[in-house]
């Protein structure tokens, strides 16, 4: 029972980070109809900035996280302005291809900056744990969960209640109508990318904290957020959150039980669980749990 609860709790912590990353994808998708494959690179870059300011320069870790989030936003906005804006009006296919190219290029650059060693993030948690009712939770997990919830709530408040959030939703709903109302749709695209960039940076920092570390292979983590958005539905914010939690918990439950129950599935099987969950759900619901089904009109 303790194993189970422990797996569920750490799964929820993981799930909130997945949700954070997935929201980045969803916001870009809603604004521009593009799934950004550049997100892994932005995530590693963001985590790199946090690590850099916290350990190389030696500033306070939380200050470093804020700087990383700001730099992530700047990178997202600049990328959108330089590489994605010229493609507005062209097939989605092209824009997706550019994000793939960007991911390749940015990842080479950040890999080079990072070097070949694993880096600790300089966070205050280390390997310390908290004991709640017999369940041992790493402090870093708890901090990541709370931090992610905070960021997600802030985003939701921004998106649902502020003027800019309304403008973003309007632009996502109908670009031409939004333009007719005087909303600078191009700037909303930039804003979406900036938000996604800073969320990726924060998520990257959170997953590298505690007993994990930042290395050249960290980027694969962001790819596991792709099943999350497909599971929840590409354009659904609720789907990103629910999907993130489902996949986080599923991954950690498998990690806890599969080595004992089905060792023939191999080491690291939990890392492909997100994709398997995604495939199963898609067989039943091709637009995910909450995605808008496309209506075909003739």
């Amino acid at each position, binding site marked *: 029972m303790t194993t189970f609860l422990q797996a569920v709790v750490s799964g929820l912590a993981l799930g909130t980070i997945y949700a954070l990353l997935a929201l980045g994808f969803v916001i870009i998708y809603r604004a521009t109809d593009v799934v950004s494959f550049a997100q892994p690179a932005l995530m590693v870059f963001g985590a790199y900035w946090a690590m850099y300011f916290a350990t190389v320069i030696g500033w306070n870790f939380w200050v470093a996280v804020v700087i990383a989030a700001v730099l992530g936003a700047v990178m997202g906005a600049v990328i959108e302005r330089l*590489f994605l804006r010229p493609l507005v009006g062209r097939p989605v296919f092209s824009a997706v291809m550019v994000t793939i190219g960007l991911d390749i*290029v940015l990842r080479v650059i950040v890999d080079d900056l990072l070097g*070949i060693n694993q880096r600790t993030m300089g966070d205050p948690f280390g390997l310390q744990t908290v004991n709640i009712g017999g369940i041992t939770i790493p402090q870093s997990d708890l901090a990541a969960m709370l931090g992610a919830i905070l960021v997600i709530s802030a985003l939701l408040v921004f998106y649902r209640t502020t003027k800019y959030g309304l403008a973003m939703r309007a632009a996502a709903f109908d670009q031409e109508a939004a333009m007719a109302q005087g909303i600078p749709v191009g700037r909303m695209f930039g804003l979406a990318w900036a938000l996604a960039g800073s969320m990726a940076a924060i998520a990257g920092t959170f997953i590298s904290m505690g007993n994990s570390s930042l290395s050249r292979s960290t980027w694969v983590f962001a790819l596991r957020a792709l099943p999350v958005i497909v599971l929840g539905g590409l354009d659904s914010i609720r789907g990103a959150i629910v999907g993130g939690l489902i996949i986080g918990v599923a991954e950690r439950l498998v990690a806890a039980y599969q080595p004992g129950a089905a060792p023939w599935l191999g080491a690291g099987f939990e890392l492909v669980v997100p994709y398997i969950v995604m495939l199963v759900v898609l067989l039943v619901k091709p637009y995910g749990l909450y995605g808008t089904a496309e209506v075909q009109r003739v």
Partner: protein
Amino acid sequence: MATRPRMIRSHRDAMALVRTPTRAVWLGILLVFAFAAPLWMSNGLLFLLLAGLAYIVGAIGLNLVSGYAGQLSLGHAFFLAVGAYTAAVISGPSTQTTFGLGINEILVWLPAAGITAGLAGFLVGPIATRLRGLYLAIVTLGLVLVGDHVLRTWTGLTGGVGFGRQAPDPTLLGLDLSTTGPILGVDVARSALLYWFSLVVVILLTILALNLVRSRTGRAFQAVRDRDVAAEIMGIDLTRTKLIAFTVSSAYAGIAGAMLTMRLETIEATQFNLLLSFLFIAMILIGGIASIPGSIAGALVIAILPDIAGPLGSVLTPVFETLTFWRADAGFPLDEFQLEQLLYGALLIAFVLLEPRGLIGLWVRVRNYWKAFPFSY
């Protein structure tokens, strides 16, 4: 009539593979050049070209499903792996760690690689045909990552990470293509024989693809890509068309996987990763979407990148060294693999932004400019 060779008088002429005498001449020159390549090329370059030939097959396959049928697939690396391992299992002997059939006849294992991979495509198809657009891209991406896990785990097939298994052994009708030695009294290098064989395979598969895309099925592909609802109303069976596209494309990928590995000593389980899929995406975008000659051009460009990466490194390394302030670690020079990635990533972005029709589009622009020279239009 013979004085107006460019005049097209019938549908048959318009759809011909070689439409004008000029093209026939250039095609002939190109073929002579391609067949003569091993006679003057260095072994290193020939080795790259061998990869290039395999890339051509794979790129044509990807262009059929993504360029012609419009189904964005990031799962190409998975089907390459299926082909490569089918070939390796059929041709390789059973050892203590891996199983194999020990039939090293290339005419057996190369088609088998295509058939198995095609079958895999056919099995994945039903999931794929239910999905549209980016959902499909993400699912096929998942396929590569799940496939990667299977390859890492199934050591009987792959020999395990870090060990690998023997690559397919090319023997054509009893003649071992992988040895050096006199053949009919002439000294021929190992890669030359492999090259000629691969070239013939590539030519056959290219003709097959060209014929496919100008057939009823090929037109159905393009109708589905341009507007699937409209295509369906015209009486095109969407599921069937997508399934054919996936199956044929995967079969091409399987053959490409076998060809890509047969020039090597061992196959590593980790080489069939997402980057390989991206590499093929880069090929068709650089060459030209929905163009068979484009696929060939793109594949060759990507194949010779390793040769360009060296000189590029001497230019870029000083640039990257200026970043010392931002570095977490003492400087690591970019390795060749990273330079290659940097190069094809940049090419990918540049082509999509500046010339979406790829090298073929560039060529058409140049040709049209000179056709009407000195009048710009």
